[in-house]
């Protein structure tokens, strides 16, 4: 039965090549766009090296500090003082690392040319939570941080800029007017992986000034490693509780703090919606994403429906014969929907190939001012893609099929609709 449907479907597709081409064009293009977007989001939100522990990691990123009357708010990255006092001490956390909220861009000069270097302050735990593959040397330790040793881990491309092909460990690198001894070299991290990204990582205590130590707000983030994701609610609750008892240098100016220990998606949602009390709304973010995706699919889907509807006419006599010989409406709908699914699957295949090509292109050209991407299609995205295709095939096939099954056999045989 199904084999018959498939044979029929392919025969129909071959019959009117123009229609088949237009349908495939629409489907493959739509899927390629959706897959590229999904792959881009996936590589930001999900764990890729060095963030292999992402599914059991939370982050404390932007916070909001509020005045007693709630009129003055200060939103921005948390301060080192706050993170040191209230996040490092969370009982349910296995490990906590404090690092710069984002990489500072520092200009470096070598042999008369200038290049931008992403510069980040971190501590010893950072290297334990994140899973860096060291090309040479090793990470700096908590002791290095405590003793303010001028040591640095650098990226592969920074090593190339400074030392060419030679090894870098043990050598000195001068950046932003300070000199660091290189202790380790790691592969480049793409710039959109904003927690681990940098070209040079140095201990926080090597900062030029020490005022950061007591600040509640400004310049830092924390990442929290839990034993497993099951501990997330406990950690979130403990952090909320800790914020309620936070001490303020001048309670008349500011006396409330809001924020949370978040997954990446929760952080994005928190910053996007700017809710009062700075709550996160992941469900809203997901709803917006799916609505946009559906809206984008609407036009190609209607286009396909229109093509299908106008094709029915061409097949009126076939349908008339089948009806006259007693084919039920369900059979006809089943047949037509199968045909449409075969069509969308073919289009989907082309779409996959297209999206791999686009991602490959994005990886090779420098679209972002600094560094290259490592976007790719994996099993998870393939699965999303198959879901999208199937949904699309059903969505665009059901109405024409229903309309087809309602044809009056006598009229259909005569060729009129």
């Amino acid at each position: 039965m199904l084999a018959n449907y498939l044979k029929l479907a392919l025969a129909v597709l071959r019959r009117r090549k123009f229609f088949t081409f237009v349908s495939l064009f629409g489907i493959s293009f739509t899927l390629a766009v959706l897959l590229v977007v999904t792959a881009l989001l996936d590589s930001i939100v999900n764990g890729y090296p060095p963030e292999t522990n992402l599914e059991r990691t939370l982050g404390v990123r932007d916070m909001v500090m509020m005045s007693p009357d709630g009129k003055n708010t200060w939103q921005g990255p948390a301060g080192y003082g706050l993170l040191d006092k209230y996040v490092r001490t969370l009982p349910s956390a296995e490990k906590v690392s404090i690092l710069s909220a984002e990489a500072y861009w520092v200009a470096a000069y070598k042999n008369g040319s200038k290049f931008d270097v992403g510069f980040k302050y971190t501590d010893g735990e950072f290297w334990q939570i994140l899973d860096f593959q060291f090309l040479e040397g090793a990470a700096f330790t908590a002791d290095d941080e405590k003793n303010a040793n001028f040591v640095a881990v650098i990226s592969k491309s920074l090593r190339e800029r400074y030392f060419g092909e030679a090894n870098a460990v043990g050598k000195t690198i001068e950046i932003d007017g300070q000199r660091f001894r290189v202790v380790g070299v790691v592969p480049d991290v793409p710039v959109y992986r904003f927690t681990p990204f940098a070209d040079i990582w140095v201990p926080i205590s090597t900062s030029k000034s020490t005022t950061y130590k007591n600040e509640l707000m400004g310049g830092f983030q924390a990442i929290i490693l839990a034993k497993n994701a099951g501990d997330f609610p406990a950690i979130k609750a403990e952090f909320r509780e800790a914020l309620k008892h936070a001490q303020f240098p001048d309670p008349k100016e500011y006396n409330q703090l809001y924020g949370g220990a978040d997954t990446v998606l929760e952080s994005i949602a928190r910053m996007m919606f700017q809710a009062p009390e700075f709550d996160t709304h992941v469900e809203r973010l997901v709803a917006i994403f799916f609505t946009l995706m559906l809206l984008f699919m609407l036009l190609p889907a209607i286009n396909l429906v229109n093509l299908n509807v106008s094709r029915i006419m061409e097949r009126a006599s076939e349908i008339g014969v089948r009806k006259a010989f007693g084919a039920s409406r369900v059979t006809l709908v089943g047949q037509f929907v199968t045909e449409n699914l075969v069509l969308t699957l073919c289009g989907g295949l082309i779409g996959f190939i297209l999206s791999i090509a686009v991602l490959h292109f994005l990886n090779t050209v420098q679209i972002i001012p600094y560094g290259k991407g490592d976007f790719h299609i994996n099993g998870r995205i393939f699965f999303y893609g198959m879901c999208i295709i199937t949904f699309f095939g059903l969505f665009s096939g059901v109405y024409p099929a229903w309309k087809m099954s309602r044809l009056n056999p006598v009229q259909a045989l005569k060729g009129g609709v």
Partner: protein
Amino acid sequence: MIATTAHLFKLVWNRKRSNALIMLELFIAFLALYGVTALSLFFWSNYNKPLGFSYANVWQVEIDRKEQGDKPSAEQTERLRRLIRSAQTLSEVENVTASFTVPFSNSGKGGNYTINGKQLRMDINEVTDSFKDVMNLQLTNGRWFNPSDDGQNWIPVIINERLCAAGFGSESPLGKPLYKPEPGEKERRVVGVITDFRKNGELPRPSLFMAERINMNDTASFHVPHNLMLKLRSGTTAAFEETLVKTLQATVKDWSYRITPLQESHDSTLKNVMIPFVLLGLVVGFLLLMVALGLVGIVWQSVTRRTREIGVRRAFGATYGDVHFFVLGELLIITTFALIAGVVLLLQLPLVGFLDLVDASVYAASMVLAMSIMYGITALCGLYPSMLASRIQPSEALRYE
């Protein structure tokens, strides 16, 4: 002709079910296209307005003081003065100014103030006296800041012509307070008018702008600016950057410096807007191409199906032109219905404040442009099938079964 048009309407109406889906498709395509035409015209009209300043040979030095807040401190002021002096000693540097915000950066200060009963939103900058010469601003009325403004109990401000027109109409703003100060706040008194200072670059919409004078001798209320701007002698190369950073680091070693030629930030700002815009244009272009190809298929199919009908018309004396008119006319009527629905929806945009974002002329022109493109596309789609239809011979068509 009127009779024929009426007849076409009837035909469209008779096939309303399947035509409705085509209309829906064209309606959505029109809305997507409107988004692109509106953005294009918006950028184009902004691009053609003068920037009001010149960024050639101007470098920005961003100072990271590694401290929070803008608390005034005599020591910080002193350090900033030392930096400015040491930059001025370099032979490549023509002029130095300090400013809060710089051109082509996302961050900036803004404020809502009531001026002559009107609530106005403006961009605000705080600058030193040499800012006008470094940025090559064009003064059209009054005077620029000068050292005689020290020690006044009011703060001198410069406004752009747009703010002058919006707040003061045809009256002269000179010597007047820009807005009524809150108790305890110093009066902002307008001393001059400049053509413009579009800090966000060519593509965003020009905004209202006000610059306050930084009084570096008044350490009590003084915020230390984050940026120095250096006007360099023409011909200075990028190699000078390293010398400059070393000089600044030798002067105040606790601070960090990041140098960007404004030409670079200009180019990257332009790129940051243009890349997403081009991507959007490409996606919408592909969607329209898909819709167009689909339409060709549909019209083709309907022409094939109606071979007999067209044959009869031809037998009764319809000319080639009549058949063209007949096939194309039907398509254009469907398009017209879709566009009417689209325009009705777009006419609601001003109600949700769309005209605060774009000029009325851009709003209207982009609607007309999008409509013309839609008509163009559908006419083009109908052309080949209608040519096929007009070639149908009556004898052949009537034999068709």
